[in-house]
């Protein structure tokens, strides 16, 4: 194994990791603001991607717009609007009635929501494999050709995807740190009661958080969808993002990003170095075991708030 190919794996891992953290971000946002561990994030990713893919087909057919950029943009906006509606409905119909329930009850509720979204998404939009073509270049580029022999092969698509993810994360941090709504969100995350007592409307905040998570799901769905095709197996992306959240800490946005990068790199390196000895396909559980071992030493994750037990 040469340094070049090692670096290549490393970079590939970093880029996949960036995409993981995009999904993980959805988990963290909702958990921070409402204490709900949202298992439905994967279903939301699938739902958003399905909406995007289908509307990108339907809008040109209905309106006669032939410009792919315009059609994609319109589809993105429509899908975003749909995610807003979904978020509002989830809050209104399910979560509002489950305030103050135990964490496990909420977890189960989101599992139920994820079944519901899977079913209804495939009923409305169909259950075939669709593709999202937002014009991301597919050809790989070579870098550092003069540093290493043969250079490093970088997938351009991954590079763009990672860039989009990075931009989204930056936007979200600005939104959380600099705007009044963001401040309210952080207040709610800190202490529900205190936030409510100074006049922050909890219900509206939750709708906003679910909307933001919906948009994050949409972006994740578009990127993953254009990479893998929009199909049911997209929901497993959420399963792969779970160890990321655990590693990074459930309440930390930087943790989600760093955790994603660590898991992405760990997965790729383990597959390359360890995989051949044990028969391959270890990517999926390796991330979990990594997170598990990590938990044994630091139960709250990388950046999670320290867990204090009180009797």
């Amino acid at each position, binding site marked *: 194994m040469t340094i070049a190919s090692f670096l290549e794996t490393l970079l590939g891992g970093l880029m996949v990791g960036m995409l993981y953290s995009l999904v993980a971000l959805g988990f963290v946002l909702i958990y921070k603001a409402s204490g709900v*561990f949202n298992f439905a994030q994967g279903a939301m990713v699938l739902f958003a991607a399905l909406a995007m893919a289908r509307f990108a087909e339907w809008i040109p057919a209905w309106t006669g717009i032939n410009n792919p950029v315009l059609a994609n943009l319109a589809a993105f906006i429509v899908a975003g609007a749909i995610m807003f509606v979904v978020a509002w409905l989830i809050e209104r*119909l*399910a979560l509002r*009635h*489950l305030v103050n*329930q*135990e*964490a*496990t*009850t909420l*977890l*189960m*509720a989101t*599992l*139920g*929501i*994820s*079944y*519901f*979204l*899977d*079913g*209804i998404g*495939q*009923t409305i939009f169909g*259950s075939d494999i669709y593709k999202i073509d937002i014009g991301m270049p597919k050809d790989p580029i070579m870098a550092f050709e003069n540093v290493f022999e043969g250079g490093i092969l970088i997938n351009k698509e991954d590079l763009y995807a990672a860039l989009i993810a990075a931009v989204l994360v930056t936007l979200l941090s600005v939104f959380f740190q600099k705007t009044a709504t963001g401040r309210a969100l952080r207040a709610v995350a800190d202490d529900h009661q205190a936030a409510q007592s100074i006049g922050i409307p909890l219900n509206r905040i939750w709708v906003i958080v679910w909307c933001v998570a919906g948009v994050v799901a949409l972006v994740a769905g578009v990127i993953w969808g254009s990479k893998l095709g929009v199909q049911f197996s997209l929901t497993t992306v959420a*399963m792969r993002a*779970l*160890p990321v*959240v*655990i590693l990074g800490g*459930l309440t930390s946005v930087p943790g989600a990003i760093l955790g994603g990068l660590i898991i992405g790199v760990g997965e790729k390196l383990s597959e390359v170095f360890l995989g051949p000895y*044990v*028969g*391959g*396909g*270890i990517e*999926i*559980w390796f991330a*979990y*075991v990594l*997170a*598990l071992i990590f*938990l*044994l030493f630091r*139960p709250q*994750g990388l950046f999670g708030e320290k867990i204090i*037990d*009180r*009797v």
Partner: protein
Amino acid sequence: MFYRENGQFKTTYRADQQIFPIAQDRWAVLLLIAAAYIVVPMLTSGYMYRAIFIPFLIMALAALGVNILVGYCGQISLGSGAFMAVGAYAAFNFFVRIPGMPLIPALILGGLCSSVFGILFGLPSLRVKGLYLAVATLAAQFFSDWMFLRIKWFTNDSTSGSVSVTGLQVFGMPIDSPLSKYLFCLTILVVLALLSKNLVRSAIGREWMAIRDMDVAAAVIGIRPMYAKLSAFAVSSFIVGVAGALWGFVYLSAWEPAAFSVDLSFKLLFMVIIGGMGSIMGSFFGAAFIVVLPIALNQFLPLLGSLAGIQVSTAVTSHAELIIFGALIVWFLIVEPHGLAKLWSIGKQKLRLWPFPH
């Protein structure tokens, strides 16, 4: 009027401590078991056994195991499918590799292997709890999915990756007809349910509940968290493992790793939540609900569609199943977060005063 404990005086501690202190309960349970052994075989046909009764019995057993861990000890597990898989594959290996291995010891050995696996993946519970633990137990799930798919030794080097068992028999009686399968599963379920009912009212059961209610406080009054948690993992995964072995041997008879996917883990957790956490009875309710619901939907949706004049395709049915399933779960959690067992106990409470509530 009929369901009341008036006049039933307990004169010994033994009488006071029995499983069903109220005579009516005792008779009801005995009647229920008798009905399961005698009335059900008289009324049902082969299809009903295969579609409803056998899966219900096995799932009830699995839900019972999960309930011990989740409901009694408060350790959330999303890896129950993995424990079932370990039980099934271990029992398979004992059964196939050792010539003349009887069925019941193979099942028990499968359960014990699952126990060991459960303890191993229960170790994180000593450090983390709640949602973190839920995700940690998913590690067991994905690890077992991979293990039984990739390591050929476990599947007896079968080329297709699927394994099958034939020639099941107990004490010389073949287990091949639906009726014999039903009776076999029923017997195991009754024995293990009685065992776990007794276990949860014993000292160790009280330790589990103390840990569930507040682990720090439990540790302060002298309960060893490690012992209590790991024993809950061991007992729970033993029962789940036996259920997994039954699922493979009796219900599927030929299976591949996908039979024990994460979906099954979720379903088991649903059974426990819908049935009622911390209730043996609840496991049965939950299993019945989850097993019967998809079948009922499959029957009713095309009927409903034809009434409305719409041809309902199988794809639509399966999606509608997901939708209704998800919606029902959310609705259930909103209306009765303590599960069907709570409704049951409310009903019993009402029955005590009926027909003259004060």
